[in-house]
């Protein structure tokens, strides 16, 4: 292949911007040819000479300075790239990426045709940044340095996008290119923040997404991007212990993936995504007081179904020791998914409701009374929590549960609405209304949660 600066210039005049891809897998032949031809170029190839060459081409009438800077940056990349070393080449590659993104910031220039190049380059840059960051210690860099840099480039572009408020367009294909990639950028940024262990940064992106959007309905965005958005939003809520909000998003992501699988056919990547969602959705549902059908879970992930079947049994039985044993057994895996502490805090009241349910059914209703003595509850707690040994070491499994206070457990259940009853501290009794219907005394937790914790109204448009 013979490819010179002049060939490049004429491609650019023809708006064939794909030639600017820094991805050697896709564009390596062209870059290599350009590198070869530059080596023998009259007039030199130092920075100044390359700049002068680009200026002399009078691209876009010479008015678009950032475009010229970007093209010059590409020429430096072609000149200096070392195909054997991502590390040696990272300056020119990341420099070009930043310059390319700068071209897209100002909509008064004809930047639309550059958007596909930006997308392709982003797809190339992110894995490169991840790979380089994996070696930050050997390279003497801060953790996530390249990803952090990449996120700054993308967020600058994200920030430059503004909604056209007067003219909301209902046809995705007629939207400006930058609007079309809005959800793509949102997902990319959020993924990077999760990877950098800084998901709190997602909050800004979630908040600013809709105000930047010219499209009136979320469902007009590409389907896979919608699903990924909900998955990320759900995980973000879960990290903030906002269970019902997390549940709604993750459950929706799951249902959508299944619907896609059934209409367009499944694929290994799709099934892996289903498993990713289930990892978070199953525990979140359990925290909502729901019971997953483990046979359905097992269709996608037999191991996950197996792991959660033991937990499910302990919850149904009201067995706190069983829950703690399960948490202890799976501690490592739960820590890695940031699930341990949220389960530690939010599983017990679900289990306590089941425990009290057994007492109401097998003692109160069996005896035809509408009360529950504290003493009976205390005994059940003792059976559930285990011995209350003061000498044992305090850890997250021994330190939390109030074996000694039946009243406190009942009070919390009543406050959450999981037990409809009144406490009579002086009589050491809990009294509920006269009914044979257990669900009147111990209503479904999911319903109570929905009543007490309204969903974030900012997310309502995701259903549009």
């Amino acid at each position: 292949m013979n490819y010179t600066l002049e060939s490049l210039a004429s491609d650019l005049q023809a708006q064939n911007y794909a030639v600017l891809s820094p991805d050697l897998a896709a564009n390596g032949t062209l870059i290599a040819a350009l590198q070869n031809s530059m080596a023998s170029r009259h007039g030199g190839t130092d920075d100044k000479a390359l700049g002068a060459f680009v200026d002399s081409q009078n691209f876009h009438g010479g008015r678009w300075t950032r475009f010229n800077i970007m093209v010059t940056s590409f020429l430096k990349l072609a000149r200096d790239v070392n195909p054997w070393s991502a590390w040696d080449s990272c300056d020119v590659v990341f420099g070009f990426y930043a310059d390319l993104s700068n071209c897209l910031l100002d909509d008064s220039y004809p930047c639309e045709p550059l958007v596909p190049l930006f997308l392709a380059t982003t797809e190339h840059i992110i894995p490169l940044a991840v790979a380089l960051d994996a070696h930050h210690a050997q390279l003497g860099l801060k953790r996530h340095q390249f990803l952090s840099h990449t996120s700054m480039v993308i967020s600058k572009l994200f920030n430059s996008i503004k909604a056209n408020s007067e003219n909301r367009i209902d046809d995705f294909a007629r939207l400006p290119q930058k609007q079309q990639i809005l959800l793509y950028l949102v997902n990319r940024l959020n993924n990077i923040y999760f990877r950098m262990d800084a998901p709190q940064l997602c909050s800004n992106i979630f908040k600013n997404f809709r105000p930047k959007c010219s499209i009136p309905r979320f469902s007009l965005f590409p389907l896979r991007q919608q699903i990924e958005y909900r998955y990320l939003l759900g995980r973000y809520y879960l990290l903030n212990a906002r269970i019902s909000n997390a549940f709604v998003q993750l459950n929706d992501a799951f249902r959508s993936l299944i619907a896609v699988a059934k209409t367009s056919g499944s694929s290994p990547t799709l099934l892996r995504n289903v498993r990713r969602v289930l990892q978070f959705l199953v525990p979140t549902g359990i925290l909502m007081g729901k019971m997953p059908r483990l046979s359905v879970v097992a269709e996608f992930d037999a191991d996950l179904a197996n792991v959660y079947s033991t937990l499910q049994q302990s919850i149904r039985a009201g067995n706190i020791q069983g829950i703690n044993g399960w948490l202890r057994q799976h501690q490592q895996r739960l820590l890695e998914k940031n699930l341990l502490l949220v389960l530690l805090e939010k599983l017990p009241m679900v289990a306590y409701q089941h425990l009290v349910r057994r007492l109401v059914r097998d003692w109160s209703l069996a005896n035809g009374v509408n009360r529950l003595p504290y003493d009976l509850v205390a005994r059940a707690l003792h059976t559930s929590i285990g011995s209350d040994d003061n000498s044992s070491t305090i850890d997250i499994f021994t330190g939390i549960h109030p074996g000694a206070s039946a009243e406190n457990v009942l009070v919390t259940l009543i406050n959450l609405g999981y037990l409809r009853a009144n406490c009579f501290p002086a009589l050491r009794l809990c009294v509920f209304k006269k009914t044979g219907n257990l669900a009147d005394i111990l209503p479904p937790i999911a319903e109570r949660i929905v009543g007490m914790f309204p969903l974030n109204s900012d997310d309502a448009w995701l259903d549009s």
Partner: protein
Amino acid sequence: PAAAAAPPLPSDVRPPHILVKTLDYLIDNLLSTLPDSEGFLWDRMRSIRQDFTYQNYCGPEAVDCNERIVRIHLLIIHVMVKANVEFSLQQELEQLHKSLITLSEIYDDVRASGGSCPNEAEFRAYALLSKIRDPQYDKNIQEMPAHIFQDSLVQMALCFRRIISNSNFSERGFVRTENCLNFYSQFFKLIQSNQVPFLMASFLEIYLNEIRFYALKALSISMNKKHKPIASEAIANELMFNNMDELMEFCKYYSISVTQEGVDLKSVTAHSHKLPEKKPLKNFYLQCVDDKLGNTAYPNVINIGKANIDTINSRSNAIPGAVAVEEVTR
């Protein structure tokens, strides 16, 4: 110096080993004059931290000083409340948080460069208690190495965070979450355990008012509207008030009526422990926490822990590109 003042001349900034000596001096000679010396100590400790910041120094002396400064703030919280002397808890906590953030950043950097700090777990535990309802801290601690996460102080701090979690908690900017435990009875049981050291217990005392308020709130919600008042002694006992006067002061603040019969929980009408129209309720202490301190001389409460010198990987003393720690704390 005021925040806007120009940074001092290099010749006016004390080098690390002098800052250690300065702190030694404060500990050996001024702690015993608490509560009188609180203001002076606060000022001198801030100045020590600032001098480290000015020279962008993150070595073992900085770790040592920040660690001991955190312990001093924790000691002061208890001593001042016990002495019933007016002081600004909010200012004390502000400096305490700053020191904890400085430490957390240094610990991260030291670990990233292959070193370790011997007292890290203790201060990670305090950090968990410093923003006791912030889920971000749960995320961070779950990502720490096992020896930190499994450390007994960290485990206890994690217990307290769960125990005081509360789905009724209401404060500006706080988002309530589902299924919270509000195990106030367990809070009072656990804090008495001799496994909970004095400094941790002292820190937990700052949450006494909110724990007691939401305990009464929850009790009141769970009780029948016609229920009689509860004997004051029973309430004082359950919520570990040191004496009836304290309980009366507490009830008066929240306009909870107390009669001959006892505390009338129907009159708990506030929805938040923070009453917008009133200045905050004064802080209380627990006798059981004071007993943990006993007659221990104050310097012996502070100069505990392992020496930082020689344990930190020497490479980390000057962290390349480290930003002035004070700036990063927002």
